[in-house]
């Protein structure tokens, strides 16, 4: 598929990487020649130098022959204008714009068609929602939803001395008490899809498929973290903080935001009268202590600097804050300190995987991918498929279906009822199926998970 990406920043680069890997013809537009030259050396793409919202540049990039335009420049207005212009040149073009300013949220919702947008993405809001969901169940390091929110894949770490330690997966049901499926285990950085005799050890990161209504029960039976989060400290008062604070305050959680810029602090105080806003540098240990870091249930670091976020999170982790969430933009080195900073949320990754999902869904193939989540530090993918006429092995018990190496079917939704499958389960036309695949192979449609 021919795809144009306008803007070669963090998100643009991540998207280029993903989409080229999936085999699309990508053209990158940016006004900065040096950024483009970097890209040319690294990826098999075409580059066009110029203003992405200008007619000439879009023409030169071949907008007439393209199927999708993703506008991800740093300015919202440019992105919208870019999509508007491109749509006027090519009526059948799909357009995705990154729009971050909360002041535009409403008009985007009502004027989407008028503005020529197929999809608008707000990475900060996605990140805030993601963090909010993590705070709901502090025992889980990550949560990914499938089947319209009915099924989730959650990540948990097995601590020293936990009840799950040294348990073979065959016996999991006895402890968990609800029907769940371990679909991937990351042990010392290596991701595996386990079988029934696999024995869990302390330090493993385990990815569990469970029905959403069973999550609370699961937490309780596993005796991981049951206490609810009531006091949260947010370090840094950017857009994510604002969105997150709104969500948290809505559920009655007490929020404290530490921000060092006086203007912004004042603005937050005006927008969020229920939150307590503190003016100060959140990277100072003394300030954190005096603002009650020891008493907080959770701490979320949201400053603009990755390094600052990581250091503050490590500090909070050492002093025993129960739930620590770190915002990291560049995930390149994150595996080094993954165990020390709790959950990691990356707006860039969220945004790019949301777009990749859209792109995969655009290629109207058989056994379409409807949801895609990267799990285990990108070591595996969880994909949700629609089962239609073309899909092979319908109505065959799973134990007889020849799956490829490193593929596991972890959930089947049949007429709104979700089933955690075993060897005798079958999938039928009209069902949705969730499969977990260790990364390295690109799965475009459901038939790709079967042996030839």
């Amino acid at each position, binding site marked *: 598929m021919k795809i144009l990406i306008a803007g070669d920043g963090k998100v643009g680069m991540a998207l280029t990487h993903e989409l080229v890997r999936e085999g699309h013809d990508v053209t990158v537009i940016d006004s900065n020649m040096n950024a483009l030259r970097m890209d040319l050396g690294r990826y098999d*793409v075409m580059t066009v130098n110029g203003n992405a919202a200008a007619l000439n540049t879009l023409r030169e990039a071949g907008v007439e022959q393209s199927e999708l335009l993703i506008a991800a420049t740093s300015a919202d207005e440019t992105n919208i204008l870019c999509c508007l212009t491109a749509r006027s040149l090519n009526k059948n073009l799909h357009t995705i714009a990154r729009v971050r300013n909360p002041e535009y949220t409403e008009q985007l919702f009502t004027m989407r068609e008028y503005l020529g947008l197929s999809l608008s993405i707000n990475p900060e809001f996605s990140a805030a929602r993601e963090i909010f969901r993590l705070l709901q169940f502090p025992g889980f390091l990550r949560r990914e939803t499938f089947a319209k929110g009915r099924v989730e894949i959650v990540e948990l770490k097995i601590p020293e001395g936990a009840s799950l330690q040294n348990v073979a997966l065959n016996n999991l049901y006895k402890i968990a008490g609800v029907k769940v499926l371990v679909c991937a285990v990351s042990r010392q950085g290596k991701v595996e899809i386990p079988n029934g005799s696999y024995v869990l050890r302390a330090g493993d990161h385990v990815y569990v498929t469970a029905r959403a209504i069973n999550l609370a029960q699961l937490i309780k039976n596993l005796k991981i973290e049951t206490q609810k989060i009531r006091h949260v400290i947010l370090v840094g008062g950017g857009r994510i903080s604002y969105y997150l604070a709104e969500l948290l305050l809505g559920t009655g959680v007490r929020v404290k935001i530490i921000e060092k810029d006086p203007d912004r602090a004042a603005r937050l105080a005006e927008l969020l009268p229920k939150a307590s806003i503190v003016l100060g540098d959140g990277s100072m240990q003394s300030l954190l202590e005096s603002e009650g870091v020891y008493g907080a249930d959770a701490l979320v670091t949201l400053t603009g600097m990755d390094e600052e976020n990581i250091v503050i999170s490590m500090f909070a982790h050492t002093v025993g804050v129960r739930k620590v969430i770190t915002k990291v933009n560049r995930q390149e080195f994150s595996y080094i300190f993954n165990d020390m900073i709790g959950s990691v949320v990356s707006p860039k990754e969220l945004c790019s995987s949301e777009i990749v999902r859209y792109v995969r869904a655009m290629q109207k193939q058989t056994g379409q991918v409807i949801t895609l989540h990267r799990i285990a530090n990108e070591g595996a993918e969880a994909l949700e498929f629609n089962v239609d006429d073309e899909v092979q092995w319908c109505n065959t018990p799973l134990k007889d279906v020849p799956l490829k190496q490193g593929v596991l079917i972890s959930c089947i939704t049949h007429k709104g009822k979700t089933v955690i499958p075993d060897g005798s389960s079958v999938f039928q036309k009209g069902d949705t199926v969730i499969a977990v695949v260790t990364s390295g192979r690109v799965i475009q449609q459901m038939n790709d998970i079967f042996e030839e």
Partner: protein
Amino acid sequence: MNIKIISRTISSILFLEAIMMLPSLIWCFIDREWDVIASFVVSVSLICLAALLLRLFSRHANDNFQAQEGFLTVALSWIVISAMGALPFFISGQIPNYVDAFFETVSGFTTTGASILSDVESMSRGLLYWRSFTHWLGGMGILVFALAVMPSSKTGSGKLYLMQAESPGPSVGKLTPRLHTTAGILYGIYVVLTLLCILFLVMGGMPFFESLCTAFGTAGTGGFGVKNDSITSYSPYIQNVCTIFMLLFGVNFNIYYLALLREGKSILRDEELRLYLFIFLCATGIIAWNIRSMCLSWEDSLRHAAFQVSSIMTTTGFCTTDFNLWPPLSKAVLLCLMVLGACAGSTGGGIKTVRVTLMSKILRRDILKTLNPRSVVLVHMNGRQVEESVLRGVSSFIAAYIILVGGSFLLVSADGISIEGSMSAVLACINNVGPGLAEVGPMSNFQELSEPVKLVLAGDMLLGRLEIFPLLSIFSRHAWNRRM
């Protein structure tokens, strides 16, 4: 520097070369020349063996492929395929001296067309076919061919450097997002034009084998003929077909792609194409007027002038007459055309019209800047601003070119031939033209030169074809350093 990935690429190129040798066998079979078949079989097996050894050595190569690797791969591949491509000539004994065979093959791959053979017609057809086919492969570039036929890797990181190093011109752009498709389109255009050329030649009554070889020589702008007197003895129709096709292959191939997209306006506005055609017309006019007393009719002098201008300007090197006997003005015009060369992105050699255009624009800017030091002047080409790095590249290319021509001239003149002879030999080789003047003129050849001088000239041909810097990079200490 990642030596393993370089070896792996070279090994693929060698396999490709072995496959490309096979069609020559057809002509050997038709002529029942079993000893030539044997020499081809031995050569192909040797090439495959070398390729296998390289593949074995590069088993665990990682994919780190950057500019450094790209340039080294191109430079080394060209040397290796020339050395290997010379094997059939040497083993069959038809060119008994290996240095001569190497010279002939380098001349083939670089599309120079300078020959050491005094009697081409006595050679067997299988070898003649291979000799002309090297032109065709070298014209568009064998690595570009590899990019076009081999499946593209998922990320394709760094492969652009291969194309940049091999394709002529100051800046290489992609036509499509994927390198694989770009290379495929370029080769598609090349194949179609070559087939058209063969068709027109056969229609003019040229025997099939000869039209194949002549078409390869024309397409790659090479210049190896299958007759001792090149194109002289063919009919005027065939000579005119060659004139037109040489001119066509000297045009930037992007122009043909634009034609496919029906962007007529931007073709007409292309500054390089306009200058190229303008120079062709002017030079033809001057020479036709200058040689009018030597020819039978106006038509005759115009045909010879147009053929020779087209042949020398696109650096092909075919000839219809001994231009060595022409008056000094015509010879001087031809020498200038040799240096000027064809368009960037074509199969021709020389400095390239676009570089001359840019150089004159740089000069104009610098004059303006001397007169008015505070003025800000940008250089534009086809309505777009040209990046400063491209301009710097043009200046340093021309400087390196002058130094190399001077150095080679000194070395070649040690052989004791005339000044005109040695100067034109160097220019004919570094610009990939082929025939020069005086001792190395169109009706004589490079046989009489000594072996070291032949090697110097072979080096010049490679420098000219790869546009100097990729080849010079081999001699840089930094190219071989471990990357830190």
